[in-house]
């Protein structure tokens, strides 16, 4: 199943892969550690459980739903009736609370483990943008929208990914904190007060959920755009591609004098223009 990932240009590399071989050779480069892959994937079922049980809690009070509107114009209510009927939603508050308050701990543990991991391994550097990344983010977006040919210099993640992923971590932290403010507004009354009150904490909790949901959809689209080799890397841990593929060895994408030193590769993207046309290197936002 993994072989469908081959970039368009299947190479003549013979089976005894010479690891010091040419830039056209197909190799795989380690991208995500096992721990990182599992922490990433655990979020999916956990957030599904949390959102589903959270909906049951939210839906218990039908009298004042949150409304999405702009400048006084009501656009729709959360949730639009269609969502309710499409999900075959069964209102069941007791079960909602039971799942939410038990499974919530796993989301917290996973998040804490992830942040500790980033801190210990120094991998937060891949994610937290520096000033230049902040400046470059719009170039990435322009590139993704096909308004720009070249991409800004990047490390493991491009500037737009860095900003998005950092925000996702922050939003998750606020989501958890507002959850605790709601859950323990007696013992943690200072936390409730820090959010500006119970109502505000509930609204923040709900809003952060919506933001994560929006991120989720954008994430899916970007993963689909980035292609199979990119998707497979979050399962296998390795990115398959040509040795000189910038997605395999991002250093190859570097500027004019970016002499590539990675692992004995002799690849030269001579003119320094990242070969954005390479099928497997396009759109890396995942």
């Amino acid at each position, binding site marked *: 199943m993994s072989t469908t990932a081959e970039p368009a240009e299947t190479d003549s590399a013979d089976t005894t892969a010479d690891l010091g071989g040419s830039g056209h050779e197909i190799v795989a480069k380690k991208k995500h550690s096992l721990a990182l892959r599992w922490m990433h994937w655990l979020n999916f079922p956990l957030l599904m459980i949390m959102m589903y049980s959270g909906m049951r809690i939210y839906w*218990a009070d039908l009298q004042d739903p949150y409304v999405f509107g702009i400048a006084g114009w009501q656009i729709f209510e959360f949730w639009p009736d269609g969502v309710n009927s499409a999900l075959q939603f069964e209102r069941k508050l007791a079960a909602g*609370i039971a799942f939410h308050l038990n499974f919530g701990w796993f989301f917290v543990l996973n998040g804490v483990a992830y942040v500790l991991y980033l801190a210990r391994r120094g991998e937060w550097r891949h994610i937290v943008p520096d000033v230049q990344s902040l400046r470059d983010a719009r170039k990435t977006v322009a590139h993704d929208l096909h308004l720009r040919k070249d991409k800004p*210099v990047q490390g493991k993640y491009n500037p737009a990914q860095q900003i998005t992923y950092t925000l996702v971590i922050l939003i998750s932290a606020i989501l958890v904190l507002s959850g605790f403010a709601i859950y*323990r*507004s007696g013992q943690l009354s200072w936390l409730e*007060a820090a959010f500006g009150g119970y109502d505000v904490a509930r609204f923040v909790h709900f809003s952060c959920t919506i933001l994560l949901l929006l991120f989720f959809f954008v994430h899916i689209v970007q993963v689909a755009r980035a292609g199979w080799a990119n998707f497979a890397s979050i399962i296998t841990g390795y990115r398959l591609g040509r040795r000189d593929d910038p997605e395999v060895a991002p250093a190859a994408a570097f*500027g004019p004098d970016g002499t590539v030193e990675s692992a004995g590769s002799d690849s030269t993207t001579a003119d320094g223009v990242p070969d954005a046309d390479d099928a497997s290197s396009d759109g890396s936002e995942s």
Partner: protein
Amino acid sequence: MTGDARNAEEAERERRLREQTDDGEIISKEEYTKRSRRAFLSFAGLGVAGYLGFRQVQNMEEDENIPRILRAGFDWNESVWSTLERDGARARTFSVDDREEIRVNGRHGLEDGDGDFIEVSESEAETWEIEVTSRNGSTLDPIPLAAVKSDFEVHDMVWEHKCIEGWSNIVHWTGVRLSDVLERYAADELSAEWSVLRTPPGNDVRREYSSAIENYTMRHAQTLLAWELNGEPLTAGHGSPIRLVTPFKYGIKQIKRVGSIEFTDDRPTDYWTERGYDLHSSF
């Protein structure tokens, strides 16, 4: 000059980024095929196992209307939070000016068979007594409502009343501390793990209601027996003539119309706990 400095800076940044991303191991395509097959298989296996495990939780034998393991989880949660300061913790309070109207929500224990509120007349209120049962099952002297109102320090407290369904309102209660009353009428029971409060029984009562309160809530300074809401005597819908209020628990625990208190050291249950809710439902 500045241009050169800038280029040098950019070059340095590129070098750094390259360094950060160049540490990944490179393997041959054949090795990748082997490893990726293993990764996909273990991934799918664990995914299926996780899904089956979750179904197992959903379909597990129930304990008081929720899967057994989730009920255990509720109790585990409580043990986590009990390690944190509680007796000294205080819920936020507000000014009387902040008080709001509050809807009548739970009607349990207050309705007759037709679903109409059972009113408590003034004369009935004057002779209202709360029955008390000790841990060993003996009946103690009842607590007369008249004495509750006259013999203890009266507190006006304004806090946010929170319903488990999600709404909340800032309300103003007038009443006395439950702990003050119990110290006089059930001093030996103050060490009980639990107290279970019930609405008065009666043939005409549609659904008798009950609420179990742990020791710390029972003795907490913000747990009151209240007879006024927002400066007005309680209506039948809000639990006349006397009800329990505390900002440390959802409304479902703040029983309206208290008819009796029973003490116990064994884990009790109550109306909503039997229907799948957390026995503690604390904040």
